[in-house]
């Protein structure tokens, strides 16, 4: 903490971004800044609100060189950003060096990590000597997926503001240390199902079951042991033409060939063609006869043209209206031996896509040798 332990003595702290960087879209900058603040509002009783008011508490800007605070930036690399401790005037303000290459990836300077660090200063934290802390002074990229504040930073900021009373207990570091799901549970709900190389893969929490040929039996594995970086699969499908499998998790998706992630992934759902309102895909299935992929989100579905690599026009459509017999939601979908299977809850429907007709209803767990 700073001498005198300055902090914000209010429940809602406002911020305003006055100068954006052209390196990223304004929408991405807004959402990344909001995400960085949320790291703190998740654990302390303080909320952050973006404002257009001149009198916002924390003013944020991207500027290069001398920018009027007697701490000029130094061109690319070196100093990436700086921020002021809580207070009036410049207090809490955060400045980012426009000469850096701001990104959301491991390239250049990751805006989320740098902003989260600077907001630590804006809330009252000084630099930490703990190399694993966010407030360590030198920049190092770490995976930002599901990022939470390291212990040193959490303890520091909670010592100033207290603990948010409505937060859930801190998740265990090893999310998949929970007992593996029971494949023969009659209430088994799949997160996702796909074929890969002629075998079926059923995903549930941090695990998957692999169902091979008739004599191969069913084996269970941790997702992380095969596809590092993937914690839980919301939806998945195989593109046999490209020999790849696509995984959706949260608002991102990955493309793998075997165990290797293709360059440039993960990408955001908006890169796939979804509107920004879509933050999670429930299910996906590649319909091989028409080389299109159906993607399910809540009670609607999209059609993706794999040849043109873009969404078909006229979508999304309502599931219950255009795929009669499937229901209103799909949790998992896959193609097997020419039929589509749409799973919702613990049940699934075998479906003839061309005729738009449900053929059978069966229980999920029956696929797993029970």
């Amino acid at each position: 903490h700073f001498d005198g332990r300055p902090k914000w003595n209010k429940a809602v702290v406002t911020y305003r971004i006055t100068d954006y960087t052209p390196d990223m879209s304004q929408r991405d900058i807004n959402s990344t800044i909001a995400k960085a603040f949320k790291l703190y509002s998740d654990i302390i009783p303080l909320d952050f609100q973006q404002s257009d008011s001149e009198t916002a508490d924390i003013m944020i800007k991207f500027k290069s060189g001398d920018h009027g605070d007697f701490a000029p930036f130094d061109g690319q690399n070196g100093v990436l950003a700086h921020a002021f401790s809580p207070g009036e005037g410049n207090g809490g303000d955060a400045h980012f060096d426009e000469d850096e290459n701001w990104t959301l990836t491991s390239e250049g300077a990751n805006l989320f990590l740098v902003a989260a660090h600077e907001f630590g200063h804006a809330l009252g934290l000084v630099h930490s000597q703990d190399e694993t802390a966010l407030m360590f002074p030198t920049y190092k990229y770490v995976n930002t997926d599901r990022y939470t504040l390291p212990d040193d930073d959490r303890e520091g900021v909670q010592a100033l503001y207290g603990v948010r009373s409505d937060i859930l207990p801190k998740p265990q570091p090893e999310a998949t240390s929970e007992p593996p799901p029971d494949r023969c549970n009659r209430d088994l709900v799949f997160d996702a199902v796909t074929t890969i190389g002629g075998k079926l893969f059923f995903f549930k929490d941090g695990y998957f079951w692999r169902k091979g040929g008739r004599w191969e039996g069913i084996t269970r594995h941790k997702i992380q042991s095969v596809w590092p970086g993937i914690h839980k699969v919301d939806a998945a499908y195989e593109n046999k033409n490209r020999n790849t499998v696509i995984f959706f998790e949260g608002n991102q998706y990955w493309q793998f060939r075997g165990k290797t992630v293709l360059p440039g992934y993960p990408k955001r759902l908006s890169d796939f063609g979804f509107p920004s309102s879509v933050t999670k895909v429930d299910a996906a299935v590649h319909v091989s006869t028409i080389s299109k992929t159906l993607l399910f989100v809540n009670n609607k579905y999209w059609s993706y043209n794999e040849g043109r690599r873009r969404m078909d026009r006229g979508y999304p459509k309502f599931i219950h209206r255009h795929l009669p017999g499937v229901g209103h939601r799909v949790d998992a979908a896959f193609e097997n031996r020419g039929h589509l299977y749409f799973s919702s809850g613990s049940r699934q429907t075998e479906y003839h896509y061309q005729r738009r007709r449900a053929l059978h209803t069966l229980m999920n767990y029956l696929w797993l040798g029970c």
Partner: protein
Amino acid sequence: MPTSSPRQENLSKAQNYLSQFFSEVGVASPSSVVRSSLDSFNDTLKKMQEFFGLEVTGQLDSNTLEVMARPRCGFNDMARYG
């Protein structure tokens, strides 16, 4: 004009780094023998090495130079601003 040697360049960069991040008044030149109001180069370098968990030698070794070359936050590491 003669060009400065790599060693001199490193010393100059280190002086700037220490002045910016480990001192509130600035750091004297490493070769300075004159008493000044600036912080001593060697003492400040030791502070910096201690802060980053490096071996505290007071010498501008390769590990210290590597840390100084990393991209970083512009905030002072020793500051306790009120």
